[in-house]
């Protein structure tokens, strides 16, 4: 069973290296994080806060947009693309179960994403540490950022597989993936904000809003990272929410894991019904 999962995962990693997916994702992450670290943290000196911590706070906000996008772009093709190209027919005729196939894909894509995150964000963290801009605690913040970004990525990979398993054309699932990104990452927050503003009865903010944030892995990710940085006073915005929540920020991680498992199960239900 594990041989087959690793075989599929290994092929995804190999393909990621070969079609320069990993390189592209790494470059994007490195470029953005370096820009934020070098330009964005200039005023932090006067605040007396660790420059690395401030950078991690900015990067967490960046990850919310970039990591789901990269994950969805990796995943949208996973099933529909293989049907489209006709490669799934052969794979499914082999003695590999569809669960093994999906887990292999997820593992491979997670490795692709992790490599990009470790190199992209890691290089920025090490650079800041090397020039004496941060403490070991700042490095720990970077490690946490990379690990939680990978978890966020996995959640959106799973969402991508659901969308990919819905159609037989990879162009359709590409459109669905972009739509999912727009809704979950951009419009969801806007809608919550709008509801908060118009909420006059006072029931939405304390009773619905915290759970609505937890349901979306992107928001849960942001909540957890900013809360654990203790940086809400610096960054403001939605991060301040963490202090008024009815549950500890760690619950946000559990929520991301829950969404991931749920989406993977949903994808599996679809994949099992596919006639390649």
């Amino acid at each position, binding site marked *: 069973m594990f*041989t*087959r999962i690793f*075989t*599929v995962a290994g*092929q995804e990693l*190999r*393909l990621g290296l*070969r*079609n320069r997916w990993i390189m592209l994702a790494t470059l994007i992450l490195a470029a953005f994080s370096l820009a934020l670290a070098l330009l964005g943290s200039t005023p932090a000196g006067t605040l007396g806060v660790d420059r690395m911590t401030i950078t991690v706070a900015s990067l967490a906000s960046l990850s919310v947009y970039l990591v789901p996008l990269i994950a969805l772009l990796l995943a949208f093709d996973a099933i529909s693309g293989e049907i489209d*190209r*006709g*490669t799934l*027919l*052969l*794979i*499914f*005729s*082999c*003695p*590999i*179960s569809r669960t093994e196939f999906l887990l292999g894909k997820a593992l491979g894509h997670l490795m692709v994403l992790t490599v990009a995150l470790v190199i992209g964000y890691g290089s920025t963290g090490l650079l800041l540490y090397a020039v004496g801009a941060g403490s070991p605690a700042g490095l720990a913040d970077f490690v946490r950022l990379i690990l939680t970004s990978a978890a966020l990525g996995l959640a959106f990979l799973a969402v991508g597989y659901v969308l990919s398993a819905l159609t037989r054309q990879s162009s359709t699932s590409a459109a669905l993936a972009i739509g999912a990104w727009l809704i979950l990452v951009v419009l969801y927050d806007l809608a919550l904000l709008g509801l908060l503003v118009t909420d006059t009865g006072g029931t939405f903010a304390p009773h619905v809003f915290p759970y609505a944030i937890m349901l979306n892995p992107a928001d849960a990710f942001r909540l957890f990272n900013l809360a654990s940085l203790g940086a809400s006073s610096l960054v403001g915005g939605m991060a301040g929410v963490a202090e008024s929540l009815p549950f500890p920020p760690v619950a946000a991680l559990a929520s991301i894991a829950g969404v991931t498992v749920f989406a993977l199960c949903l994808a599996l239900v679809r994949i099992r019904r596919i*006639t*390649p």
Partner: protein
Amino acid sequence: MTPAATLTLKNVDKSFDRNAVIRDVSFELRAGERIALLGHNGAGKTTLFKMALGFLRPDSGDIAVLGHTPGSGASRAGTAYLPEAVAFQKALTGREVMAFYARLKGADRKRSLDLLERVGLSDAANRKVGAYSKGMRQRLGLAQALIGHPKLVLLDEPTSGLDPVSRQNFYELIEEVAAGGATVLLSSHALTEVEARTDRILILSKGQLVADDTLAALRARARLPIRIRVRGTDGAADRIADRLGGTRVNGCSVELYCEPEGKVACLASIGELGGLVDDVDMHLPSLDDVYRHFSGITAGEV
């Protein structure tokens, strides 16, 4: 003792959107047999393969692959498949594709690489599959299908896109595989394609199995007439037509048909004409004629 059945279909029906694609098909394939499945485009060949692989379920009837349900782990472990228009990840090399499928099938990777040489792809093993020609992809697909000694090999139009030399090699390979005890079921849309390299022929027409026999037996059963064309010496055509029956086709030739068993008698009577005859041409019914005969039959006539 007869060898064990590797693929059994019993009264299998399948329709899509109320269009019957497979109608009441039953047959049994045994170990070591090479079987050709013939039929026009859309006759239901690919549907039949997909049902044997467990991708599609029959509406009614039973299918057993190596004694198991199609699609179960045990049936897939012993089954190999080459789809029509086979496709691989373009960015991988031939060697990587073989290693990938060998690991999925739990077979020895080294031995599977030897198969690349066997299908004549050892020179291209390190080139990306995206740069392969159709024939090369087809041969890679065949090599992939033979990984790990499958007991049932399903090949969907395996010889399309192959040049005559590759086709020759292909049939030699199939013969070896069958000699090793595997059942090989290959589909094609022309009887001439499968040549005399298969033991048994199944013909599918509009979803129905209209023939299941050896080529020689099919020929005999078809009872197609032999066409004889007799060219007479100057002005003798009319007299030949009078004596033999048959029709004049141009100024100097007469065409007549005779049953297979009347062949010798017919030739004898031509011989009696002596000087009137300039030349004789004889056309035995071709494989295409036999195939057309059977694929034209519908259920009512069987």
